[in-house]
């Protein structure tokens, strides 16, 4: 096929350009420089990322506190006793509520998560952290009465504030009688 005059001129120009500036890739030196710069930047960024670990621990403490607040508010709003059971070995927190017919802890049922509509279970292993220790009177469960006041899982009054010690140092304090929940 014959080319038009205009197309022939363009092709000739491209050929000249290619001859004067032959195409070439990045040299090894350029690649090495780029990789070095990237390595330096990454090296500078990594030490400053320790905040992610501490943020994760704070999130775990806040989520635990929020779960306890939820159980407490549920008890006050519905006038039914609620429980928060800690499983320290599994780093898990589960919420329960007294049956509408009453019956105390024997007939308690899982409290539902308002978002998922399934049993409210907080798994801290997903956050790479967990519970070191839980001191709620004699056991590892806290009960909220219809006033929002806390006691041990079996209903025994706290002789001191309840305490949840999280991995990494954060603590959640459950003030006896008033039920004030504080992240410390």
């Amino acid at each position, binding site marked *: 096929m014959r080319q038009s005059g205009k197309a022939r001129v363009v092709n000739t120009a491209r050929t000249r350009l290619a001859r004067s500036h032959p195409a070439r890739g990045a040299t090894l030196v350029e690649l090495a420089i780029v990789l070095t710069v990237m390595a330096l930047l990454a090296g500078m960024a990594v030490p400053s990322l320790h905040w992610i670990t501490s943020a994760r621990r704070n999130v775990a403490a806040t989520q635990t506190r929020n779960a306890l*607040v939820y159980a*407490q508010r549920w008890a006050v709003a519905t006038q039914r006793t609620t429980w928060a059971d800690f499983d320290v070995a599994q780093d898990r927190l589960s919420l329960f509520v007294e049956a509408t017919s009453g019956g105390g802890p024997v007939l308690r049922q899982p409290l539902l998560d308002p978002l998922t509509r399934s049993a409210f279970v907080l798994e801290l292993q997903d956050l790479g952290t967990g519970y070191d220790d839980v001191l709620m009177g004699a056991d590892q469960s806290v009960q909220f009465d219809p006033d*929002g006041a806390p006691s041990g899982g079996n209903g025994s009054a706290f002789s001191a504030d309840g305490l949840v010690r999280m991995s990494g140092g954060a603590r959640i304090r459950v003030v006896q009688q008033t039920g004030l929940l504080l992240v410390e």
Partner: protein
Amino acid sequence: MELVMVMVIVGIVGAASSVAVLESMRLYASSMPRMEGTYQSDLMLQRLRRDVRALGDTATVTDFGSERFSFVREDGEPVSYAFDGGDLTRNGQLLATNLSGFGFRYLGAAGLASSDPSELYLLEVEYVIERGGQQLPGYAMVHPRSLGR
């Protein structure tokens, strides 16, 4: 050279977009103290309302000040609220922290301030909770149900 240019451009774009991300994080961080203050305010008022509503008899009022209020509930439980050093306690146990202001005010049936416990008809409570440099003011009125309408 092309790679360096790409890195520079990516860096500029990253820095620009990080501003938006950081702003969102800052907003989230500033909402946390507010949520904490709201929780404490909610817990404090809910407990105070229940107690004052259950006040049995104005004759049981033993402490009647702007920062202290003590009485006996209908069920016989003595209750004492006290504000001291930024903390509000109920029967000696912490109920709210970091209050920059707190005050009880007692009103008679005509709505006038009273310093006589026997005239108590309405309790006013006014407070300011401080969290993360933010001030969360609150106010509530409670009428003991035993005092009738």
